[in-house]
């Protein structure tokens, strides 16, 4: 593989990279000056030509999303999704801590392209350090005339506020996020209308992920053709990957979307292999919502299309957690099932009940009181609660379906062996208590 020149992480490792002074010395805010000399439509067009796909999970092209804003609007809001609650994702945190001005420049350019009056950066409450760093960077930007009224004498004005969440995964969903900014429970909204038409305060709104917006200054500075020179058709541009678990070098890395999952775990540029002689048993390559792959499937390419070949929902957040073979697969199933049961907002019956029942069944299996038919019951349940069959309001339910389905399908033999080796009578005892 040719040497890859980092783009999004290029300032990581530079001393005081979070300050305006250093960001400027590294060439920062030149893209903004360039963008403000273009018309908003020209900026939008450049981003659309680059086919920058959203990095928050769904992979929708950002330029196309922006073009859905009604032409005759009076208000526009930009919401920046920094909720980052999908286990095990931490790339937005790294960007915000190390290079907050890159994000702010992306916000201002994207705000200009969409003619937004205000940008709200939604941060999960557990992000204390990122909050302090980003707030300080925003203050610096205001003081330097990069935010506020008449930015760099262009006539364009933008305010930028941080809105902190309070502990709810579903507030990462774009309409849950909007409700949460409005001061309500983070219940996702029924779509349509989509946020571009009716979003925050019922005004046209764009919601984009932190990493998506960080790409925008680079597209403006170097052009759509440069962006398309990285990666492959449909998967253009630089991408952040996370790798964690028992690998030698857990962390956030940048690369083209042509690397494989195996590269991410073993390559010297990334995870550098397993530590203490451990062996890979399973990997959730795109955040837990996307599903699991086995050790035989590490040739999966970390792009938007290949994961579907392996039974996954998509590339998600491109954050891989490695499970080594000392871990009981029943523990993995229970942990993942609990996440969705506890984070389901409860609006849709089948999501609320389905995730809770799957958690109960998974707990019973883990405690050594599973039945073979529980495995079929889990699979059946996963077919009955998602947005895919048109049953739910938001994608959390699909995020629950894929990991549970793929864990049970791909590790069925191991489950069956555990169940066969259980003490006789423990199933009946457990069910008697449950009833």
């Amino acid at each position: 593989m040719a040497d890859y020149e980092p783009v999004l992480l290029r300032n990581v490792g530079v001393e005081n990279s979070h300050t305006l002074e250093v960001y400027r010395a590294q060439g920062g805010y030149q893209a903004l000056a360039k963008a403000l000399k273009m018309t908003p439509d020209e900026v939008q067009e450049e981003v659309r030509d680059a086919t920058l796909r959203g990095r928050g999970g769904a992979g929708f092209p950002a330029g196309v999303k922006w073009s859905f804003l009604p032409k005759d609007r009076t208000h526009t809001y930009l919401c920046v999704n920094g909720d980052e609650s999908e286990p095990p994702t931490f790339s937005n945190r790294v960007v915000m801590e190390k290079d907050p001005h890159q994000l702010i420049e992306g916000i201002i350019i994207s705000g200009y392209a969409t003619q937004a009056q205000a940008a709200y950066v939604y941060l999960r409450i557990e992000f204390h350090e990122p909050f302090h760093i980003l707030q300080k960077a925003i203050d610096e930007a205001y003081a330097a005339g990069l935010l506020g009224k008449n930015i760099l004498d262009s006539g364009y004005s933008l305010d930028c506020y941080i809105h902190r969440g309070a502990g709810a995964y579903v507030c990462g969903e774009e309409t849950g996020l909007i409700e949460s900014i409005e001061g309500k429970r983070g219940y996702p909204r029924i779509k349509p209308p989509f946020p571009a038409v009716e979003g925050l305060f019922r005004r046209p709104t764009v919601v984009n992920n932190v990493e998506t917006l960080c790409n925008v200054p680079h597209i403006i500075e170097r052009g759509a053709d440069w962006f398309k020179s990285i990666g492959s058709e449909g998967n253009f541009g630089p991408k952040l990957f996370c790798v964690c678990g028992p690998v030698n070098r857990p962390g956030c890395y940048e690369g083209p979307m042509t690397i494989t999952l195996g590269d991410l775990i073993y390559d010297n540029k990334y995870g550098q292999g397993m530590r203490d002689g451990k062996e890979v048993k399973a990997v959730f390559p795109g955040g837990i919502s996307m599903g699991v792959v086995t050790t035989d499937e590490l040739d999966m390419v970390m792009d938007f299309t290949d994961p579907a070949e392996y039974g996954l929902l998509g590339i998600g957040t491109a954050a891989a957690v490695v499970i080594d073979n000392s871990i009981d697969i029943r523990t993995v199933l229970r942990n993942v099932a609990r996440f969705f049961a506890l984070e389901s907002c409860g609006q849709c019956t089948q999501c609320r009940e389905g995730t809770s029942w799957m958690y109960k069944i998974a707990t019973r299996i883990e405690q050594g009181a599973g039945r073979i038919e529980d495995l079929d019951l889990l699979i059946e349940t996963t077919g009955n609660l998602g947005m895919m069959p048109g049953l739910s309001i938001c994608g959390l339910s699909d995020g629950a379906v894929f990991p549970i389905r793929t864990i049970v399908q791909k590790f069925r033999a191991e489950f069956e062996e555990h169940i066969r080796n259980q003490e006789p009578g423990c199933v009946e005892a457990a069910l008697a208590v449950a009833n």
Partner: protein
Amino acid sequence: MVWQAIDRNEAVIDPEAPAVLSAAVRKKIESFLPRYETRLAALLPALHVVQDELGYLSHQAMKEIAEILELHPSQVLDTLSFYTHFWTHPKGRKVITVCRSICCETLGGNKLLEAIKAKLGIDEHETTPDGEYSLVTEECLALCDYGPCMLINEKVHKCVKPEDVGRILDDPNNDVVDMPRSDLFDGPHEAGK
């Protein structure tokens, strides 16, 4: 998320009770209003400020927040009861938040949690009798590269082993964050360090 039931047989707020929000807090809440199109939108920031000041959100505090934001008190309770971060009863001076998600658990997060419980003699959602610590677990804290991890108030503790628990909890400054910091680089690192 949190579901909570209230005993409706007893008046939850004494109408004669003195105000609990200080003038400074009220001013801070007012300062959020120009950011948003509606007063309701200032509710989450207001709840954060009040919880930081008072330690938790009492019914009296909810009522006063409602007055400032021109809401009904039940709207305040409706919103805050959705979010796990808000406390409606007193908590310890320091809150320990241990990650329980997949990466941390498979790296030994459970043993860490057990060590903390043993050291403090409390279970999850409990507070030590001296009011020093409350213990909770949360889903992924987005610090998975440093798992198993935990927060003590705002302070991040990375790659914590069960044997580190005694030392960390005995340190009176275990929640001190030295912000703003300039040496922020901690990029790729050796596992377990």
